[in-house]
């Protein structure tokens, strides 16, 4: 048995060779938080939300392969405090005014805030200046809410085969860019049916003329159950 199991918080977890720690955990019904991971796309390891301790060393569970005998810590007060700090930093880096956001209640960043009991973003707000791009007839980009997870970049490249999105700049200057002659979404090859439109985990890529009609308050996905209940991929927000 030792060859095909590792442990998560001291529980034995089976895996198949090649599976990442995150995939094996999901298959076993154990939640490891993630923001830039999507089951249909190649892992990117950017957001660090899925950081776990593998034999005492921090690793991203979405990229780290499971190996026999590994001892993995997932749900510890220290890791959870770090995850809360990550969410806080993502909040102050953008302009996240949830009461006015169409994604509220179905947003993975917000849901992670709830999961880790973030009561305040805590750090000094950056209030960055970012313009909305509403040039596309059916889709708008609210750059104020983009967390640079690169899911749209990967989905557009690997699923839609269009390469509509990219990340430019480094460090705190990193930002999402649109591949079109004008840099505007309306002049790109994006269609509202693209997978890239649906994978955005936050309220950055928004389908027009939907607004708050998706579900009333109380009926939204994370009103009903926390994001940590989403271990079954087929029932999670990612599958929508």
């Amino acid at each position, binding site marked *: 048995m030792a060859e095909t199991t590792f442990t998560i918080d001291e529980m034995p977890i089976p895996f198949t060779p090649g599976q990442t720690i995150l995939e094996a955990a999901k298959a076993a019904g154990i939640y490891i938080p993630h923001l830039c991971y999507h089951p249909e796309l190649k892992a990117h390891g950017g957001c660090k939300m899925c950081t776990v301790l593998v034999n005492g060393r921090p690793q991203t569970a979405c990229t780290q392969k499971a190996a026999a005998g590994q001892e993995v810590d997932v749900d510890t007060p220290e890791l959870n405090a770090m995850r809360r700090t990550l969410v806080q930093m993502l*909040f*102050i880096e953008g302009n*996240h*005014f*949830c*009461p*006015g*956001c169409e994604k*509220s*209640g179905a947003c993975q960043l*917000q849901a992670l*805030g*709830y999961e880790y*009991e973030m*009561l*305040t*973003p*805590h750090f*000094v*707000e950056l*209030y960055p*200046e970012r313009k909305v791009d509403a040039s596309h007839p059916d889709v708008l980009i609210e750059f104020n809410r983009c967390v640079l997870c690169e899911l749209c970049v990967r989905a557009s490249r690997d699923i839609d085969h269009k390469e509509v999105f990219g990340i430019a700049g480094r460090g705190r200057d990193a930002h999402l860019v649109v591949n079109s002659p004008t840099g505007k979404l309306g002049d790109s090859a994006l269609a509202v049916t693209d997978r890239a439109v649906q994978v955005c985990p936050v309220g950055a890529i928004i389908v027009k003329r939907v607004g708050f009609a998706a579900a009333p*308050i109380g009926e939204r996905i994370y009103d009903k159950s*926390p994001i940590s209940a989403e271990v079954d991929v087929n029932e999670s927000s990612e599958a929508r």
Partner: protein
Amino acid sequence: MSTAGQEKVKVRLATTSLAGCFGCHMSFLDIDERLFELAEIAEFDRSPLTDIKHCGPCDIALIEGGVCNTDNVHVVRELRANAKILVAVGACAINGGLPALRNKLDVNAILTQVYRDPKTGEPCVPNSPELPLPLDMVYPVNEIVRVDYSLPGCPPSGDAIWKFLTDLILGRMPRLDYSLLNYD
């Protein structure tokens, strides 16, 4: 600690609404009949509910709204100086909220755009000494004074306010159940 007679010492609460919409205070009133229960154990200092203009030493101060003008700065400093525990209540107090949407705009440009003489169309920004000066931005309360606790929501529900407040009054670490923790 004892006062005359048998009367128990009550918890003193102060509340204020700064750059907010008063929604958090309305939500506070949504604790409904529990207000009677609260009145048994607490009394109000400075608050829109009492109309006391300046607060004295108190136990808990609840602040709704962000800090958008010079008067707001004086108010939060007064509450901080007097309250043992200061709580930022609601989205605006916590991250500026919707009023902070103006933070990317120039104050002068906004004022001269909004205030125009109806006859001439020229800018005529109100300039009464009664009016507090707007700040360059709307600030979260914790960027002006130290905040002990934050109670998120837009507004937090009456149930969330009740849970938080009773936890504080009873000396417990305030904690919100999943259903009471919301940013909207």
